[in-house]
């Protein structure tokens, strides 16, 4: 049961254009969402997050949009750069689950290639 889905395994975008990576979730209890970036032979690194009380969060070239009614979030990268070429994972959790370490549910990832 894949509770977090990234239906596009790969995406190719020209340098300077916008990259849009999509993520859907099925568990309505999720209220905190994160995007991670992963280069080959390295561990994932945190990119940006959003709480369910917001519908948009921006950090430089990266913006995440959340549509709770559609259970959908997207990551926009503008402008895309060759260094953005990596695998991007969407993850979700229940942020109010305190007391012990919260548990992330990851999507399967989207490989972004930014071409010159």
């Amino acid at each position: 049961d894949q509770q977090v889905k990234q239906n596009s395994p790969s995406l190719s975008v020209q340098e300077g254009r916008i990259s849009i990576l999509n993520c859907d979730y099925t568990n309505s209890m999720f209220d905190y969402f994160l995007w991670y970036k992963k280069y080959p032979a390295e561990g994932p690194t945190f990119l940006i997050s959003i709480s369910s009380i917001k519908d948009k969060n921006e950090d430089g070239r990266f913006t995440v949009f959340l549509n709770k009614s559609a259970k959908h979030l997207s990551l926009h990268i503008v402008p895309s750069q060759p260094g953005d070429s990596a695998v991007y994972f969407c993850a979700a959790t229940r942020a109010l689950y305190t007391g012990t370490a919260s548990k992330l549910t990851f999507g399967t990832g989207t490989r972004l290639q930014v071409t010159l």
Partner: protein
Amino acid sequence: NAGVTQTPKFRILKIGQSMTLQCTQDMNHNYMYWYRQDPGMGLKLIYYSVGAGITDKGEVPNGYNVSRSTTEDFPLRLELAAPSQTSVYFCASSRTELQETQYFGPGTRLLVL
């Protein structure tokens, strides 16, 4: 400051063998995690620890054991390796339970034949 280090980087095991994946962090983080990533899949939590002496199961704990005797180290033990444990294993640590503060190691690629 090395962050999170994992050894070995790559290992081939025969079915039924056992091994320990090492994870060390030098950031004095209380929280540590073990994930596995199967080909074409997302990361799944195996075990986690909220401090020395405290561990708990994640989503996919079967076939694994962990211990946390020190703040720095969080080894993952595989007993009786099976082909289904072929995966890339990532260790992570965080100062708090907020997910964005998780720092990941480079991973250990394990092949069970």
